[in-house]
């Protein structure tokens, strides 16, 4: 099963502040353990929402709103994609994560949709397109 491990934003991450040496080393060790155990598939940090934007949709209308966005608690600062046997295993690994910030923080765990989850909702054609898309993404050489 795959999970998105979402590091929620904090005032520090939204200020664009850099993590300190100690935290970086602790995270580095944790990432190495994740890789060694075949858990980590991907992971990225995101720039603060002040560099971002939001698009609102209404029929054919599109409204763009520039960041920053006020509700820090609802924003994300980074993520991993992990492969785990169960939600319990994902929780156990998250508990071992060093606190990502030198302040109160939160990590959200969300299960990723797999093709098998959709069952009969998906036509054979859609299933095939989805599989093809995934295969091409895996083989894609970045430019």
């Amino acid at each position, binding site marked *: 099963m795959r999970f998105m491990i979402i590091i929620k934003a904090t005032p520090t991450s939204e200020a664009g502040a850099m993590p300190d040496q100690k935290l970086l080393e602790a995270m580095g060790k944790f990432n190495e353990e994740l890789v060694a155990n075949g858990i980590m598939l991907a992971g990225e*940090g995101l720039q603060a929402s002040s560099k971002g934007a939001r698009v609102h949709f209404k029929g054919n209308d599109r409204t763009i709103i520039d960041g920053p966005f006020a*509700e820090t608690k609802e924003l994300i600062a980074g993520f991993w994609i992990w492969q785990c046997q169960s939600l319990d295993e*994902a929780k156990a690994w998250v508990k071992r994560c060093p606190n990502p910030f030198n302040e109160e923080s*939160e990590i959200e765990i969300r299960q990723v949709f797999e093709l098998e989850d959709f069952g009969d909702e998906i*036509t054979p054609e859609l299933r095939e397109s989805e599989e093809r898309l995934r295969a091409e993404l895996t083989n894609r050489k970045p430019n």
Partner: protein
Amino acid sequence: MRFMMLMIPKGYEVAEAGTMPSADAVAAMMKYNESLKKAGVLLSLDGLHPPSMGARVTFDGGKPKVTDGPFTEVKEVLGGYWMIQVRSREEAIEWAKRCPASANEIIEIRQVQEFADFPTDVQKALDGFTDMQPHLAHTKAS
């Protein structure tokens, strides 16, 4: 430059376990996904099951505490994401505008931190991180 497009569907925060998008919604989204791929900008994408099937971990004073979903006090949660590679923030916004999203959905665009964005001391500490993800080796500053 890499950007994430984060899908935020209103109401998903209270969606029941096993909630699925309809076949029509999936078909429309697949067309969009194909267009991203054809344009050579799509790096990765995923849909997420609702928070009722997830959990949250808080780190208060360094002690981890696990709370199972759903999270009733929360107003926004992720429904899915795309990661794209484009030349500018404006190009990322243009792609987001083309998404077949509905009136109760928002797409948030966020720039991904690249190795080169960090000051040298942080880069030193990060040394080896991109090697953990072979498909990202190209993003490492030489």
